């Protein structure tokens, strides 16, 4: 097992663990940090899955997208901007 394979295996295990933690979490706002952990793990394994320079860009795109998504969910759940206007 090369170091890259070991890193991929660790990323996959972390992703599944984070998904299980998200599933078992009763509080909605506490789900979001685990969703972030999941997206870190998935972005890392996207970069490790194929040895190609463009896969780094794909990992970056997924990372930006998922971070934006969880930020937007948290912001809307907290009430959005219209509360202070």
């Amino acid at each position, binding site marked *: 097992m090369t170091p890259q394979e070991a890193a991929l295996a660790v990323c996959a295990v972390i992703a599944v663990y984070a998904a299980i933690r998200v599933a078992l979490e009763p509080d909605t706002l506490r789900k979001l940090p685990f969703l972030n952990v999941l997206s870190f793990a998935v972005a890392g394994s996207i970069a490790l899955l194929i040895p190609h320079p463009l896969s780094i860009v794909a990992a970056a795109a997924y990372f930006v997208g998922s971070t934006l998504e969880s930020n937007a969910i948290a912001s809307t759940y907290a009430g959005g901007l*219209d509360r202070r206007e």
Partner: protein
Amino acid sequence: MWNEYSIGLAAAFACALIGFLALVWERDDLHKLLLIDLVETASLAVIALIGTDLSEALILPGLVVGIAELLALSQIYLTKEGYQHHPVTRLNIEVMMRSPAPVIISAILVVYGIILSGFTGGGIAGLGIVFLLMSRSFSGDFHALEMASGISWALWVAAFFVFMFAPQWWYMALMGAAIGILLKVIAKMSLVGAMWGEPE
């Protein structure tokens, strides 16, 4: 007997059957509109199961017709029920309004869409423009869009004539038609995006 194609076909037809059953029992019109989208997904799955270039060539027109039908039906629904002039709330998310993230994402989508060209590129670039117009409160005139629409018609007709009368230049005609449809779809989609804050 039970190879991959048969299993997939059985599952896709089961999906279509479930969708139509729900459509039969449904009374509310907006729920019916949502279920039509579900049935469209199932029928596109039937086409996708063919699995050759033919299916790709059949899915693209299906998607074009689907989005056009959806736009028309939603407008008809809004007009019929009298909801046309109800106010809509804007997007109020801190990340969207106060950061350069929407600009960067829509710039990537628009550039990638222009590279792709054709209906696919038009859809993706239009999505980027819709997202940008939605996150920034934009209100301006649309003369530029109308001009782009006219130019795309002219390009299309010119490409058609080149196909008819000078077939040896087919590559130029193909590129002209692709750029024409790209402009057309982008113009239409950004009009849809600008319609958001229009009433009141």
